[in-house]
């Protein structure tokens, strides 16, 4: 589905990604764990070309997409993304947030886009908040709208960048429930998270990243429960308390 080959990225003198390789198969739920500053967000942003990697290849269904002749917009239409800070468009209603891509990228007629948007909002349990503005929604509701928005263009894979880190504790559950349902429906997902329960219960594979490198890779149980590297063990012991 998505293959990452030897990705490097530097910002100035800061070497953030130092050669990352892995691949995500159809239906995989891959969790990426690691301390802050280890390059997890940068990695996700490279995967939908919000950031162009300096070196290495990103392959989407076997096609290298980080090439100058491929428009990044085309790639991003097939790779959804959910952000830590939700990033909903503040001047649009929940429905308009979800349908913007359908209307402006897919050129879908408004009534059809609205119908599809309402379906998606119902899927994340927000059928009753269709006309609410982001500022009128709780953090959990905003993040669920953001998930519906990421699903609008029928992406092949959805990237989650710490989707629950900015949420008040009482809203974390509802967002994880939506993500779990999505995973059960067979969506391919890459999730950067510190939610160990989600990683253990839902993920099919896990990565541990530190300092721009992948240190551990395998089943969630192996990566979280029995890491081989000292750094990974130290990190797990801190977050598993």
């Amino acid at each position, binding site marked *: 589905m998505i293959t990452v080959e030897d990705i490097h990225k530097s910002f100035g003198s800061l070497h953030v990604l130092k050669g990352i390789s892995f691949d995500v198969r159809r239906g995989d739920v891959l969790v990426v764990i690691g301390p802050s500053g280890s390059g997890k967000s940068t990695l996700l942003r490279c995967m939908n070309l919000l950031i162009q990697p300096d070196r290495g290849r990103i392959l989407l269904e076997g096609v290298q997409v980080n090439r100058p002749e491929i428009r990044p917009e085309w790639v991003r239409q097939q790779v*959804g993304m959910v952000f830590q800070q939700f990033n909903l*468009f*503040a*001047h649009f209603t929940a429905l308009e947030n979800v349908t*913007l891509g359908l209307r402006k990228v897919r050129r879908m007629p408004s009534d059809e886009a609205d119908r599809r948007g309402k379906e998606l909002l119902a899927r994340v349990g927000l059928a009753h908040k269709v006309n609410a503005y982001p500022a009128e929604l709780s953090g959990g509701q905003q993040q669920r709208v*953001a998930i519906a928005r990421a699903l609008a263009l029928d992406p092949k894979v959805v990237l989650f960048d710490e989707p629950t880190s900015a949420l008040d504790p009482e809203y974390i559950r509802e967002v994880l429930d939506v993500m779990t349902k999505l995973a059960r429906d067979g969506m391919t997902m890459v999730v950067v998270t510190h939610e160990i329960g989600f990683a253990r219960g839902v993920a099919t594979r896990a990565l541990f990243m530190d300092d721009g490198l992948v240190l551990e890779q395998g089943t969630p149980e192996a990566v979280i429960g029995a890491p081989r590297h000292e750094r990974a063990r130290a990190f797990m012991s801190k977050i598993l308390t």
Partner: protein
Amino acid sequence: MIPGVRRFQEWRVPPALFREPLFRRAVLAAAVVAAVFLALYLARYLGLIAPELWALLQPALTEGALNTFQFSLTVIPIGVFLGFLLGWARVSGLPVFAWPAGVYIDLIRGIPALILVLFAFFAGPLVFGGRQTFVSGVLFALVALAIHTSAYQAEIFRAGFQSVPRGQVEAAQAIGLSSWAAMRHVVLPQTFRVALPALGNEFATVIKDTSLLAAIGAAELVYWGRNSAQFGLFNYGIIEWVIIIWLVIALLYFVITYVLTQIIAAIEHAYRVPGLGTVAY
């Protein structure tokens, strides 16, 4: 139940149209204009204003007010257009645009508007090869005022652009919108919404800055105020008339500004976003 009483109660509920804030503001603005002119003409009709004083007020009430209104309506759109482009250039992240815009803004804000007006009036036709007529001079002076306000509006628009969180642009790009589409559908609508109150403020300033055109003899309000006051004082020697003339001029400025700020407030209301910086009005 007496039928008449019930009807009275029904009547007391404002009709649906009047509950519309837009409509209410239009009515309010029109009412203020009408009240001021009605009061003046009524005072004249009741003999409270001497015929000589009335004659002195006439040019300001007609030509002066009209010219001030027209000058404002010329300067503001040109100013918004330039200011918007300059503000955009400043946040574009492209030095080729940002740098000249920064120099322009710093330079223009450092020069008194009066000097810009005088300079444009005399040098404009000379430099641009137009005929050295009074009208062409005034047109250049209007452009000078637009340039002056555009420097301030550029900073207002810059603040508007910068108020849109970077994450929303990222989110727009993440669903496959081009950077131009992200700008058009996500950034610009929010830029304008944020900029509006400060723009209204700037427009109110522009209206009063058109008084500087009196310095080049353009027949707007202050020009007629000064003419009538001097003429009146010279011929009739009544100092109170001078005061009344300037009071009326001030009142006319207020009316024009009030109408404009009501229009801005109505636009603000139309573009409000529920839950964001909510002020009930």
